[in-house]
C-alpha cells in the first residue's frame, strides 16, 4: 500500500479523498492554491502544500508543480479527483515517469477511451451499440444522402469541432437535408474555424444512463450497476439516482454487460464510467467512457455499500478486488442532488462570498459530502459545487420523500444556491413519475 498520497484537487472531492486515506492509514498531503489558503478541509490532511496562485492554470492545472509537490513531500501516489487533470493522459504519464503512481487507469486506456472517435470504433468492433452515424466528416452530397437514409430520420448534424450542445442542427426530413448541411458547414466555419460536420441519428427525448465499473490490474472487471443522470441542465448533471427508474431488468443487464465488455477490451483498471443514451423505446447507445471517479460516485456507494475511492486507491497499489461480480448486491434506492453556489433566478450565475449559516440535513440514510461550514468562503474561481446531498432509502418514493425533507432542512445563508430549483424538481410530477428526458429542466423551469 502507498505510504503517502498527494491529493491534486480541492473542495469536497479533496475532503472525500482525505477521509479515504485516513481510513486506509495512508498519509494525505493536500495541495492548495493561494485562494484556498486556510480552507478548513486542509486541516484534516496530514500536510497541505501551497502550489500556486488562485487561477486554476497557475495551481491545480500546473502539472509540474503538482509533481514537484509530490516529490518534495515524499508522496508515492497522486489522486487527481475529478476535473482539473483527472483525465489528462500526459499528466498520468509524467507522474509515472517520475515514479509516482497516478491513481487512475493506464495511460493507454486513457488515450484510447478519452478520444470519442476511438472509443466509438472500439465499441462498434465488439458489437456494443453506438448511435448510428457517418463515422467521419461528410464529404459530398451523395454520401450525405446515402448515410442519412441508412441512419434514418430525424438526424442531427454536428460540428466536429463543436461540443457542449453548440453547433448542432436537427433535420426531420430528407428534403431539408442538403440545405441544412450547407448551413451547418458555414456556421461551423464561422464559429470553430472548421467546416467539418458529421451526421448522427437524432435520439429524441433520451435518458442518460451510465454504468459504474471498477477493475483491478489483475484482469478482474466488475460493474456496480447503473446511475440515471437524465436530470441535467445544459449538459451539467443536477440529480443522479440508482437504480434507473426508466429501464427494465433486461436493459439493465445488457448495459452492464456492455460496460464490462468495453472495459475488458480496453484493458481498463481503476474506477470508470461507461455512458449510454437510452431512447423512449428502451434502445440504448454507447456514447463515451469517463476515465476517472465521478462527482456522482456516492450514489453507487450508497446502494452497493462499497467505498469507491478506497477501492480505487487499493487497485492503484496493485491489490486485487476483494469482491467479485456475484457478491455485489445493490440495495434500496439512492438519489443525489448537487447543491451549487449559483443563483437559479439569475441564469445560474456562480455566487461567491462567506457563508454565515450552514446547516446541512442529517438522519438515517442521509449523507452530505461538502466542504461547507459556518464561515466558509466560496470562491468564484472554481466549480460552483458546494454540497452533494445523497439519500438512501428502501424504495424510490421513500428516497424522493427523504430528499424533499433534506432539501427543506438544508439552510445556506447568505450565498444563493440551487436548493430552490432542486426542491421544485423533487416535487415535479414528471420527475416523480420518471417520465423526464435530458431536456426536462430547460423546458420546464
Amino acid at each position: 500500500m502507498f505510504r503517502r498520497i498527494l491529493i491534486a484537487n480541492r473542495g469536497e472531492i479533496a475532503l472525500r479523498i482525505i477521509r479515504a486515506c485516513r481510513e486506509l492509514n495512508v498519509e494525505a498531503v493536500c495541495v492548495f492554491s493561494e485562494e484556498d489558503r486556510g480552507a478548513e478541509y486542509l486541516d484534516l490532511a496530514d500536510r497541505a502544500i501551497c502550489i500556486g496562485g488562485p487561477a486554476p492554470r497557475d495551481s491545480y492545472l500546473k502539472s509540474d508543480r503538482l509533481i514537484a509537490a509530490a516529490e518534495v513531500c515524499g508522496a508515492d501516489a497522486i489522486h487527481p479527483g475529478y476535473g482539473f487533470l483527472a483525465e489528462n493522459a500526459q499528466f498520468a504519464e509524467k507522474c509515472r515517469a517520475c515514479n509516482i503512481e497516478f491513481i487512475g487507469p493506464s495511460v493507454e486506456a486513457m488515450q484510447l477511451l478519452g478520444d470519442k472517435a476511438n472509443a466509438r470504433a472500439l465499441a462498434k468492433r465488439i458489437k456494443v451499440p453506438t448511435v448510428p452515424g457517418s463515422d467521419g466528416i461528410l464529404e459530398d452530397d451523395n454520401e450525405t444522402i446515402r448515410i442519412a437514409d441508412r441512419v434514418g430520420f430525424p438526424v442531427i448534424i454536428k460540428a466536429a469541432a463543436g461540443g457542449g450542445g453548440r453547433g448542432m442542427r436537427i433535420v426531420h426530413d430528407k428534403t431539408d437535408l442538403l440545405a441544412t448541411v450547407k448551413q451547418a458547414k458555414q456556421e461551423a466555419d464561422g464559429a470553430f474555424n472548421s467546416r467539418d460536420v458529421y451526421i448522427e441519428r437524432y435520439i429524441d427525448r433520451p435518458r442518460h444512463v451510465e454504468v459504474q465499473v471498477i477493475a483491478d490490474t489483475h484482469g478482474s472487471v466488475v460493474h456496480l450497476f447503473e446511475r440515471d443522470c437524465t436530470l441535467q441542465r445544459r449538459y451539467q448533471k443536477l440529480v443522479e439516482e440508482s437504480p434507473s427508474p426508466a429501464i427494465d431488468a433486461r436493459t439493465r443487464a445488457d448495459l452492464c454487460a456492455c460496460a464490462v465488455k468495453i472495459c475488458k477490451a480496453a484493458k481498463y483498471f481503476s474506477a470508470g464510467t461507461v455512458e449510454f443514451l437510452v431512447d423512449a423505446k428502451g434502445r440504448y447507445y454507447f456514447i463515451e467512457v469517463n476515465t476517472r471517479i465521478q462527482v456522482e460516485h456516492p450514489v453507487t456507494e450508497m446502494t452497493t455499500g462499497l467505498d469507491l475511492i478506497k477501492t480505487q486507491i487499493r487497485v492503484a497499489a496493485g491489490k486485487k478486488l476483494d469482491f467479485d461480480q456475484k457478491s455485489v448486491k445493490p440495495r434500496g434506492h439512492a438519489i443525489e442532488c448537487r447543491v451549487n453556489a449559483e443563483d437559479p433566478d439569475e441564469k445560474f450565475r456562480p455566487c461567491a462570498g462567506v457563508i454565515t449559516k450552514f446547516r446541512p440535513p442529517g438522519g438515517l440514510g442521509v449523507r452530505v459530502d461538502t466542504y461547507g461550514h459556518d464561515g466558509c468562503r466560496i470562491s468564484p474561481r472554481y466549480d460552483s459545487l458546494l454540497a452533494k446531498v445523497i439519500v438512501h432509502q428502501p424504495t424510490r418514493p421513500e428516497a424522493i420523500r427523504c430528499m424533499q425533507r433534506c432539501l427543506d432542512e438544508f439552510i445556506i445563508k447568505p450565498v444563493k444556491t440551487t436548493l430552490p430549483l432542486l426542491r421544485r424538481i423533487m416535487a415535479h410530477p414528471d420527475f416523480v413519475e420518471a417520465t423526464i428526458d435530458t431536456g426536462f429542466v430547460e423546458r420546464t423551469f
Partner: protein
Amino acid sequence: MMVANDLVELSLRDGEVEVNLRRPNPNSNDTPILHAVHAPAHAYGDLPISPEAKLPGEVVGVEFQEIHSPMVGTFYASPDPDSPTFVQVGSNVGPSTVVCVLEAMKVFSEIKAETSGTVERILVRDGEAVEYGQPLFLIRPH
C-alpha cells in the same frame, strides 16, 4: 504583496529558463524533508508579512520586502555543494541578482531578487523543501 507576487510570476513565466546546474552530489534518492510547511500554510491568512518573518527587536517602521518562492521545490543556497552561496546576510542585491536555485523534478531554476536592497535574513535552510509563495529572503530596501 499581490503586485510583488505578480512580478515574480511574470518573470518566471517569461524567463523560466531551466538551468541544468545538476548538483554533483544531490543525494537524489532522498526526498527532502518538508520543514514546517503545513503550519505556516495555516498561519498565513491575509497578512502582508508572515509573523515568522518578523525579527525580534526589529526596528518599527522599517518595511522589509520578502522574496517568495515562485514554485514548489527544494531550496539550495549555492549552485553546487562546493561553491559559495549566492548571497549571505548583508549582501547587496539588485533585481537581477540570483539569490538561490530551486530544484523540482530534477530541474534547477535560478531565482532572482526582483528587488533592490540588503539581505536581512535567509528564511529557509539549504536543502529545505519550500512551497509556492513561501518567503525565502527578507530584504531591507535601499
